[in-house]
Structure formats: structure tokens, C-alpha cells
């Protein structure tokens, strides 16, 4: 079974803290994604990575950065957390093939107080 594992299911952080959300996949997938899920807005792409050290901005990259030093790990970083970053964060990965299916982690519900 493909596994995409996010480091935390629930997280509470204070405004101004630096926050790291980690995602690890075990299927040697080239592509990895970070989404933010909010009611009524669906899944919005923050960043994605198509190879080690390679990244592209998604639709809402402001306030976020990412790191991909190893193929299996993709980290989302909130440099200075703010209350408007309270949300559900989903990581996904997929192979670089034409009929690819994306596999998702279980999500991290982040609350910034």
C-alpha cells in the first residue's frame, strides 16, 4: 500500500511562531503537493515539487515556503504563523506518469492562536 504520512494530525501554534509541517511518502514518487483545505474553498494548491530541490508556486504561496532535500520528504514551512493560516493542510504525492493517481496524507489541522 502506498503511504503518505503527515507528521501531525492536529497542531496548535502561536502567532509569530515558525511552523514546520512534514510529509513523507514511501512510493518513490517524483511529484509532491501541499494543499490548504478550507470550507467552501475546496483544496487550494500552495506549492508543489516535481523533483528534489525543485519547486513551483501554486495558487496561494504567500506566507509559505517549502523544502525538498530528499525525494521522499516534502516540508511546508510557515515562517511566521498568523491566525489566517489556521486551516487543514493536505500533502499528496504522485508518480510522473500519464495516468497518475495522487495519494494523500491524512491531513494536519493547524490552529494558530
Amino acid at each position, binding site marked *: 500500500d502506498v503511504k503518505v504520512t503527515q507528521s501531525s494530525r492536529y497542531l496548535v501554534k502561536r502567532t509569530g511562531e515558525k511552523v514546520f509541517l512534514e510529509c513523507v511518502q514511501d512510493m518513490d514518487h*517524483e*511529484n509532491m*503537493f501541499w*494543499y490548504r483545505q478550507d470550507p*467552501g*474553498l*475546496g*483544496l*487550494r*494548491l500552495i506549492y*508543489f515539487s*516535481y*523533483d528534489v530541490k525543485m519547486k*513551483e508556486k*501554486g495558487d496561494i504561496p504567500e506566507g509559505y515556503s517549502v523544502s525538498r532535500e530528499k525525494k521522499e520528504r516534502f516540508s511546508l514551512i510557515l515562517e511566521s504563523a498568523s491566525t489566517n493560516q489556521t486551516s*487543514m493542510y*493536505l500533502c*499528496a504525492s*504522485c508518480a*510522473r506518469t*500519464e*495516468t*497518475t*493517481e*495522487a495519494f*494523500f496524507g*491524512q*491531513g494536519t489541522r493547524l490552529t494558530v492562536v
Partner: protein
Amino acid sequence: AQTVTQSQPEMSVQEAETVTLSCTYDTSESNYYLFWYKQPPSRQMILVIRQEAYKQQNATENRFSVNFQKAAKSFSLKISDSQLGDTAMYFCAFMKGGGATNKLIFGTGTLLAVQP
């Protein structure tokens, strides 16, 4: 830029009946893929069904089938014989084909409740 629109925020269906969820998309690409994903209350997102744009035949997976209308840019999901376990948020998604750096773009979702 590609967009995906789901115009039904919530739907309800009786157990054993059929329901259709709507999705439209906008793209100038000719090579792309469309997906329906399901997110139950457990939050684990799973793939329900996939359609390649170059295939005219509509995809089916057991009780799930799609109506793919390429010219109209419409991609609806039909769930037959609805079961309580089908209660979930359903997301329509789009991915451009033919490249390594293709984003997976989602709609806003439809919350489906299957009533006993």
C-alpha cells in the same frame, strides 16, 4: 489557467437511489485528465474514478460512473445504489497531461449525505 467548478455545495440522496454530482472545467489544453476524489469524515482522500480526455468512452468503477462531455467541458459523477458509506465530500480535479510539472487542480467540493 485551468479552473474547476462544482456548483452544488451540498446534496442529499436516499440509500439505494442514484445521485449525480456536477463538475465543469475550463482549459485550452487537449491532453488532460479528470478525477473524482472522495473525502469521508475520516479525512482520508481517495480516488474514486479517473477519465483520460482522449478517451471517448466514459469511465466506470462498479457503482460509480462518469458522464464526460468534452465539448461542453463537463464531467459529472453518477453514484448508483447509494450506500451510507458514500457519505463524504466529493472533489472534482483536473491535471494537464504531457509534462512533469503538472499541477493537480481541485474544485470546491460537494458534500454528499446519504440518508437511511
